């Protein structure tokens, strides 16, 4: 693995996916960004760390890039007295908000960045104190500062007015603020303001023992609890250099695919409902409820929280349960096929779906749209196919894709992925390898780092983990969890341009991005 135009020493982490790690200076930081952008790689995550716990002290800014050969985690050390680094937004527009978040939490600044407004900082901590600094005590409150109005970009002109929405929304949804600038019904501009669900997850990680913190990872984003727990455990196991039993890999994939099905069932119903087909919501929410009830019976939890644990899984599946899971897949598949044909043939529904909230493949590539929404706009990336780790190397997951980039395409991709996941679950329960489903995980003597990378239902989830040495209790010094919503929220602002305000809920639902996974 090399980045074109750079000679770097990269260490491969012992993870089931190809992940490398290396250190760069400011020049190489910029050269790498340019080279990755030129070779159509993507920025997966950008975050900062306080390195006060080790020598030399100071800060660090990190970037994770996905290239054809795998993922590269670059670490750029910064001096404590002048923690600035070259801005990545010119190469990757999605870097902007991640850099603003790093500035809020750590005080490290992207030099030359155009947008320097606070992002996660809504005034809950003072300007001279940063939550992720080593010396800032975890678990304690900080004195807030005076809350000032956020400087939204104003749109001028005859008849332009603003519609503010949120943070408390009209449905059962997470908190966030949307500022629409409209003329009549037409949206000229949408600006998002997020961060309302910021609950200090990354600081909280530093208070937990590494063998317990998978529970917190599983609560970064409740709808992706399996994906996060797996990504965290993969990071921990890679830091420990620990391989898990084959049966554990297969069981984890079973849980992950079941999570994908549960979410797609929920979304497909909600999308029908947002286009006034209440029938769709009734049908799909019924299927989802059946799905969750079987999860409760077989795995002991409806959303399958805490079922993936360091070293394997907390649950096993006996032949009776495997049979029930398989039969439920068959029944669900028949119903979903029937419902797909109803959706496809419903003129009123298709009229709302087709052409609404369009993101062209070119725009998607330019802005770095990722995950499910990316696949609906011609970006056919899927870690399960691109870097098939066990058991996906034996399952050959098909990647759904579409080029239309509208609500209809995102619905079509969901249907295709749902049916493919049902096939995968069928294949998994039919071929579960025998053996243990959990192994004991032992951490090494020295400080270590690990990474996890998982294709969740929404897109790729990435976890970067840094642990201290055994003599300091293997304390978690940094655990960064990255949600694909970071990449996709800014694209939603583009997707609604020119649409009418009443179509926003439909467009928003078709992306179904996470607030909590983004706000952390």
């Amino acid at each position, binding site marked *: 693995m090399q980045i074109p135009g750079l000679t770097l020493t990269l260490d491969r982490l012992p993870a089931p996916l190809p992940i490398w790690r290396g250190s760069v200076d400011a020049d190489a930081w910029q050269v790498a960004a340019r080279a990755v952008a030129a070779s159509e790689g993507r920025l997966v995550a950008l975050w900062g760390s306080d390195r006060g716990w080790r020598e030399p002290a100071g800060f660090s800014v990190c970037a994770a890039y996905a290239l054809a050969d795998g993922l590269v985690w670059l670490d750029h050390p910064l001096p404590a007295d002048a923690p600035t680094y070259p801005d990545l937004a010119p190469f990757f527009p999605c870097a902007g908000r991640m850099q603003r978040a790093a500035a809020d939490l750590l005080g490290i600044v992207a030099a030359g960045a155009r947008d320097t407004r606070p992002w996660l900082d809504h005034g809950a901590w003072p300007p001279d104190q940063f939550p992720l600094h080593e010396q800032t005590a975890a678990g304690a409150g900080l004195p807030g500062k005076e809350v000032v109005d956020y400087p939204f970009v104003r749109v001028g002109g005859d008849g332009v007015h603003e519609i503010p929405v949120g943070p408390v929304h009209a449905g*059962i949804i997470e908190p966030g603020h949307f500022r629409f600038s409209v003329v009549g019904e037409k949206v000229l501009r949408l600006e998002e303001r997020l961060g309302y669900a910021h609950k200090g997850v990354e600081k909280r990680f530093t208070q937990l023992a590494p063998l317990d913190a998978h529970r917190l990872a599983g609560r970064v984003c409740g*709808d992706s609890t399996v994906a996060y727990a797996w990504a965290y455990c993969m990071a921990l196991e890679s830091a420990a250099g620990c391989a898990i039993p084959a049966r554990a890999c297969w069981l984890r994939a079973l849980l992950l695919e079941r999570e994908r099905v549960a979410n797609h069932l929920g979304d497909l119903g909600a999308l029908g409902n947002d286009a006034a087909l209440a029938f769709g919501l009734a049908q799909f929410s019924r299927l989802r409820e059946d799905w969750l009830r079987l999860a409760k019976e077989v795995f002991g939890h409806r959303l399958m929280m805490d079922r993936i644990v360091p070293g394997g899984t907390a649950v096993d599946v006996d032949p009776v349960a495997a049979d029930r899971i398989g039969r439920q897949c068959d029944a669900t598949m028949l119903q979903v096929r029937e419902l797909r044909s109803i959706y496809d043939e419903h003129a009123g529904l298709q009229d709302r779906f087709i052409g609404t909230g369009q993101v062209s493949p070119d725009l998607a590539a330019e802005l770095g749209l990722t995950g499910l929404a990316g696949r609906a706009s011609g970006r056919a990336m899927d870690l399960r196919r691109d870097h098939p780790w066990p058991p996906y190397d034996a399952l050959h997951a098909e990647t759904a894709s579409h080029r239309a980039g509208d609500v209809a395409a995102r619905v079509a991709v969901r249907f295709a992925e749902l049916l493919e996941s049902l096939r995968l679950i069928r294949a998994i329960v039919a071929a579960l390898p025998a053996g243990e489903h959990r192994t004991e995980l032992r951490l090494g003597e020295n400080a270590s780092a690990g990474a996890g990378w998982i294709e969740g239902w929404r897109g790729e989830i990435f976890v970067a983990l840094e642990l201290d040495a055994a003599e300091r209790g293997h304390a978690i010094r940094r655990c960064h969890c990255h949600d694909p919503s970071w990449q996709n929220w800014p694209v939603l602002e583009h997707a609604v341009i020119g649409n009418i305000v009443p179509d926003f809920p439909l467009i928003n639902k078709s992306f179904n991005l996470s607030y909590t996974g983004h706000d952390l």
Partner: protein
Amino acid sequence: MWKIIRQIARTGIRSEAPPDSDDSLRVEAERIQREVLAILGRALAIRHVDAGSCNGCELEINALDNPYYNLEGLGIRFVASPRHADLLLVTGPVSRNMELALARTYDATPAPKLVVAVGDCGCDGGIFGTSYATRGGVASVLAVDVAVPGCPPAPIEILRGILTAVQRRRPGAEEFSAGPS
């Protein structure tokens, strides 16, 4: 259209399906409906507020709207504005960034108002605890009538919590008739 009708006919009415012998759901649901009508004398309007949750509780609150629980059939519905609400269903932990919005939502809800905190985080901050970014449980910000534990609580537990909150107001039933006119 006939496909839709066929699918509806094939599916049947799930919320009325005869319960298994160990499934007390139907009995429970009917009792809840009677209680809501007896205590409130009308439908119960709920405003949900996510004050910083992980979205797990929202998934289960949404599940309450599926045909199994027949929520609207019980006279309970979710409304789009706190000004239409009898009860606030709040998930947490309450983030510092949501504190003001939550307080304003509470202020906008007409008295008498009930508050039900949902989930371990709504009860006491859960795994997130209290920190620079969170206040912990909902009770640290608002007067809470009932707290429903669970991570997340199952839909039927949330429904039970809602009913319990309504029952708590039984001695002061006249409060309700003296609501804003």
